[in-house]
Structures are given as structure tokens and as C-alpha cells.
């Protein structure tokens, strides 16, 4: 009896491992950034199509990449940013889309199609776009902010929040120095890293953060930081003293795109979901919830003018022309980024 019990217990322990593999009928597994959708649309989708949405979120492109690379997960729709989509295309991680099943694609503005991360428009449907920039507190900064270089001046000592990831953080220093976000020159990347190390050693940086910036900017904990325009709109609703600036050197213009990974198990459901996400009503609700900008021309027409005329969400075209998207970088350059990032992380504050 004891023996049977033990074997049973052992099976019980192992069972969940296999249970995960069980296939559920008529679902679509969606993997998206955190706080990047209006989750109430899932019920409408199920009502319209009978397909249930399994929704999970990730915190960074790299996290999405590594969970696909390490296997074991099956997603039907993923929403990486442009540079990560480019990397995935290159590494054959995405399936071509069947655009005949996505008629709502016609709603999208052509200027967001055929971009450099998917020149032939085979693998992606743009979901949202936006720019990075400088968020600052007008009661704590006494001069106008116009340039990335403003983040490196000593009059803001201890008040600066920087991105806590190598690509964005080093990218800002590259732009401040007048280089491209997509440079592969190790000398330029080293120069940018040295600028960041100097900034840290002088005590200018308060912290390196991602979503913690919401609390810190809303509570006047820091005077100035770098983040995404859409999130600035969310923050400024809580703290009206906050202002946003797209630096004169140009910022990062990013497009997050819906893709289908090769591990997809419900291809037709994925197409239906992507199509649904491009319908005007859903686009409007997602924009309202997230504060990010839509590539849909038809939805933009229906949008409240206060939103569509907001220069933070929809900057003038000459400002956008000055912005640069992230391209895919060769793996040697990515390793070098990590190498320089460790140097930055290990630098110590010298004055305080």
C-alpha cells in the first residue's frame, strides 16, 4: 500500500510537467509588453469569434527573445519592437503572415509599412509606435531642456534617471555625441560608454530604471529622466508639472509589430486576432488605455482632436524625420554592448 502511494505521489509530482503540453481547443496565445493593451477587448474578441485569448506579458524585447529561444513556450502572436523583429526575421523565428486574412490592414497608414525591419512587409503588422525622449519636472529644472546633452550636466547632479538597458542607455549617449543608434564602430560605442561612466562617477545619475520611473517622476523623486512618450502621457495625468522633450539631436522612433513565431500552434486564430487588433474600435480603445500612437489612418481620423493633435503622441513630421529607428545589430556588436554596459555598471560614484 505504501509503495503504491509513493509511486502515485511520484507520478503526481511529474504529471504537471506533461499536463502543460495538453492542447486546448480554439485559443490564441498572445505575448505582449506589460500595460500595453486594453484587456477588456479580449472578451469582445471571444464574443465575435469564439476564440479565447490566453494573455501573457513580458518586460523587455530581450526577455521575449530568450523565452522563445529557450523553447518550451508556444505563442501564436507576439509583439516585439522593430529591432527585435528584424533579428527574429534574420534568425528564421517568424512565420510569413497571410495578409488575405487581415483585411483591416488596409486601415493602416502606408508610411508605417515596408520599414527597414521588414522591407517587403512579409512578417509583421505594426501595432503601435512612439518616440523616446526626456521627461522633466518643470518645477525642478530651471532652464529649458532641448538636448540629450542636458542629461550630462552637473547642475542636475543626483537628479537624472537613465534607462536600465544597454541598447537605450548607450543609444542616448551615442546620439548626444552625434552618432547613429545603429553604429557598429566599437570606438564610437566606447566613447558613448565613457560619457555615461563620467556621468555616473560625477554623481549626476540618480538611478538606472525601467518602469520604476513612473513612481519616481510622479512623486517628484527625480527631476529628469528618459522614457517613452506614451508613458509620459500616463505620468503627466498624475503629475501635471511634468513636461516632455524630443531632443534636437533626434530620438528613437520605434514601431512595435505583431508577428507570428514559428512555434505558433493556432495560425488561423492568430490571423483573426491580428485582424481584430487593426479594427478601428479596438485601436481607439488601446490608444486610450496606453497613451501610445497608432499607425491606423482610419482610427486617427475618428480620434478626439485633443489626442491626435497632441505633439507628444503625434509629433510634427519634420521632428519625426529627424528621429532614427533601431536596426538589427550583428551579434559581435551586441556582445560589445554588454561588455561596455558592465563597465558602466561597475563604475563607482566618486563625489557625493
Amino acid at each position, binding site marked *: 500500500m*505504501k*509503495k503504491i502511494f*509513493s*509511486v502515485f*505521489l*511520484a507520478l*503526481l*509530482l*511529474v504529471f504537471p*510537467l506533461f499536463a502543460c503540453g495538453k492542447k486546448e481547443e480554439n485559443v490564441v496565445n498572445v505575448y505582449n509588453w506589460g500595460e500595453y493593451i486594453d484587456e477588456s477587448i479580449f472578451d469582445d474578441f471571444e464574443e465575435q469569434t469564439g476564440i479565447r485569448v490566453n494573455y501573457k506579458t513580458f518586460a*523587455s524585447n*530581450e*526577455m521575449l*527573445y*530568450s523565452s522563445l*529561444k*529557450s523553447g518550451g513556450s508556444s505563442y501564436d502572436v507576439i509583439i516585439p519592437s522593430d529591432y527585435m523583429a528584424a533579428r527574429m526575421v534574420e534568425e528564421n523565428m517568424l512565420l510569413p503572415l497571410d495578409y488575405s486574412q487581415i483585411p483591416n490592414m488596409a486601415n493602416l497608414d502606408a508610411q508605417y509599412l515596408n520599414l527597414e525591419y521588414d522591407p517587403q512587409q512579409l512578417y509583421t503588422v505594426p501595432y503601435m509606435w512612439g518616440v523616446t525622449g526626456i521627461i522633466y519636472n518643470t518645477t525642478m529644472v530651471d532652464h529649458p531642456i532641448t538636448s540629450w546633452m542636458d542629461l550630462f550636466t552637473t547642475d542636475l547632479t*543626483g537628479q537624472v534617471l537613465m534607462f*536600465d*538597458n*544597454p*541598447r537605450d542607455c548607450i543609444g542616448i549617449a551615442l546620439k548626444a555625441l552625434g552618432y547613429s543608434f545603429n553604429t557598429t564602430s566599437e570606438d564610437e560605442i566606447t566613447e558613448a560608454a565613457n560619457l555615461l561612466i563620467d556621468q*555616473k562617477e560625477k554623481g549626476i*545619475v*540618480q*538611478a*538606472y*530604471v525601467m518602469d*520604476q520611473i513612473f*513612481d*519616481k517622476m510622479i*512623486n*517628484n*523623486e527625480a527631476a529628469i529622466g528618459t522614457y517613452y512618450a506614451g508613458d509620459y502621457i500616463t505620468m503627466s495625468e498624475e503629475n501635471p508639472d511634468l513636461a516632455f522633450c524630443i531632443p534636437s539631436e533626434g530620438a528613437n522612433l520605434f514601431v512595435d509589430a505583431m508577428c507570428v513565431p514559428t512555434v505558433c500552434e493556432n495560425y488561423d486564430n492568430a490571423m483573426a486576432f491580428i485582424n481584430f487588433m487593426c479594427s478601428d474600435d479596438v485601436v481607439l480603445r488601446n490608444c486610450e488605455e496606453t497613451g501610445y500612437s497608432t499607425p491606423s489612418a482610419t482610427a486617427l481620423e475618428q480620434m478626439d482632436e485633443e489626442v491626435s493633435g497632441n505633439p507628444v503622441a503625434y509629433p510634427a513630421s519634420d521632428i519625426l524625420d529627424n528621429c532614427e529607428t533601431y536596426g538589427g545589430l550583428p*551579434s559581435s556588436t*551586441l*556582445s560589445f*554592448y*554588454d*561588455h561596455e*554596459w*558592465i563597465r558602466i*555598471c*561597475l563604475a563607482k*560614484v566618486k563625489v*557625493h
Partner: protein
Amino acid sequence: MKTKTPAIPYIVWMGIFVVIPLILIVIYAFTNFDGHFTLDNFSNIDVFLQVFGNSLWLALIATVICLLIAYPFAYLLAQEGPVFRKIAMLFIMLPMWMNFLLRTYAWMSILENNGFLNQFLGLFGIGPLHLINTDGAVVLGMVYNFLPFMILPIFSVIDKLDKRYIEAAQDLGANRRETFRRVIFPLSLPGVLSGIMMVFIPSISTFAISKLLGGGMSFLLGDLIEMQFLGAAYNPHLGSAIALMMLALVVIAMLIMNRFGDGEEGAVVM
């Protein structure tokens, strides 16, 4: 044979969740992306020496502080009556019912420049002190989160001490200090050693605490390993190699500790 059967579920559990992952780490650490054997992952480890040093140092400080707080507490608690003990135990365990990240987030809002602590000190005209985003805040986070793991083993050892040893020492003319130094303390060493291990190991491998309370200003081993999996360059092979080095470091530390504990029965984790 008869006695081994009930152990099967545990053996299966350990096999799946301890042994197999460990073997995978070793395999990853000694291979490259093409799956060929290589030692390259270990060749640039000198770049990371400073990270190892940083982590070791902070974990060591946190462990010493935990020990200094936990030992007197556990000792005094063991002298108390059952009701007081139960209440004290409840208060030690209570924070652990909450999520670890939530507790660390709470410290963030306490330590910030406009946080609760500085607002409170401001009432008396002190500060504001620069507390968050420093190594000190990271150590505080470690001590706060891992202190119960030091108190509990020490308490359980002192509590189960055979009171006749203490009586014998007193009968033989030892005063209180001598009884403590020559009887109670040596006998409680196994608890101290397990406590040290249970604080030191999570401290040296943490990455959430240094992210939230250190603001990315102090860079620890856990951050370094996380970066190999979630950084710009996805390199699980290098990540595994560093994790293996950390494992070696911990094993060495444990062996040294075990030598100190020689002669005491092995309540130590190993």
C-alpha cells in the same frame, strides 16, 4: 528496501528539479552555440572579478549584520515563556507571508529622498539623507529579507539545548559569561553555521534587491547572470559558466564553514 520506498517521490523531485538542471548548467557552461566543447566561457572570467568581489563583500556584510542581530534575539527568545515565543515567531514569519518583491518595493518608498523616513526626519530638521540607490540600501534589503533565515535555525538549536549541560557548568563553578562562552555558544554553532549559509547564499545571488534598492548603481553577480539571459546579447553559455563559478564559490565557502564546525554534529546544510 522497505524503508526506501517512501523516499521515491523525493528522489524523483530532486532528480527533476535539482540534478537535471545542474547537469544542464554544466553542459551549457562547457559548450558554445554550435554545441561543441569549449573552455572559452571561462577564459574572460577575469573581467568579472570585480563583480565577484562586490557581491562577496556585500553578502558578507549582510551575513555578519544578520548574525549580530539574530543571535542575541534567538538567545533571549529561547529564555521566554511559550506565549511570548509564539507571538514573537508570528511576527518574524508575518512579513514572509507577503511577496518578496512587494516587501522590497515597500523599502523603496521608505528610503527615497522624498520617502517616509526622510519626511519623518525632516520633522526634526534632519536630512534629507541620501539613502536609496546606495550599497547600504542593498545591504539593508538583504538583511531585512533574510534575517528570519538566521534567527530560526539558531533559535531551534538553542531551544533544544540539553539544560543539564548548563546546570553542570554552573555546578562546576562557571559564571554566566563563562557558561555562555564555553557551553552554550559552542553547542549552538551548528545553528549559527546553517544560519550563515541560509543568509549568505541568497545574498550573494540576489538581483532584484540590487535593482530596486540599488537603482542599478551597484552591480552584483545575480545581475551579471541575469544579463546573460536577458541582456542585449543572449548568451546562456556564458551565463551558465558564471553561475557555475558562483556555485563553486558557495561550495568552497561551505567547506570552510564545515571545518569550523568540526566536531559539532552536522546541522549544517551540507
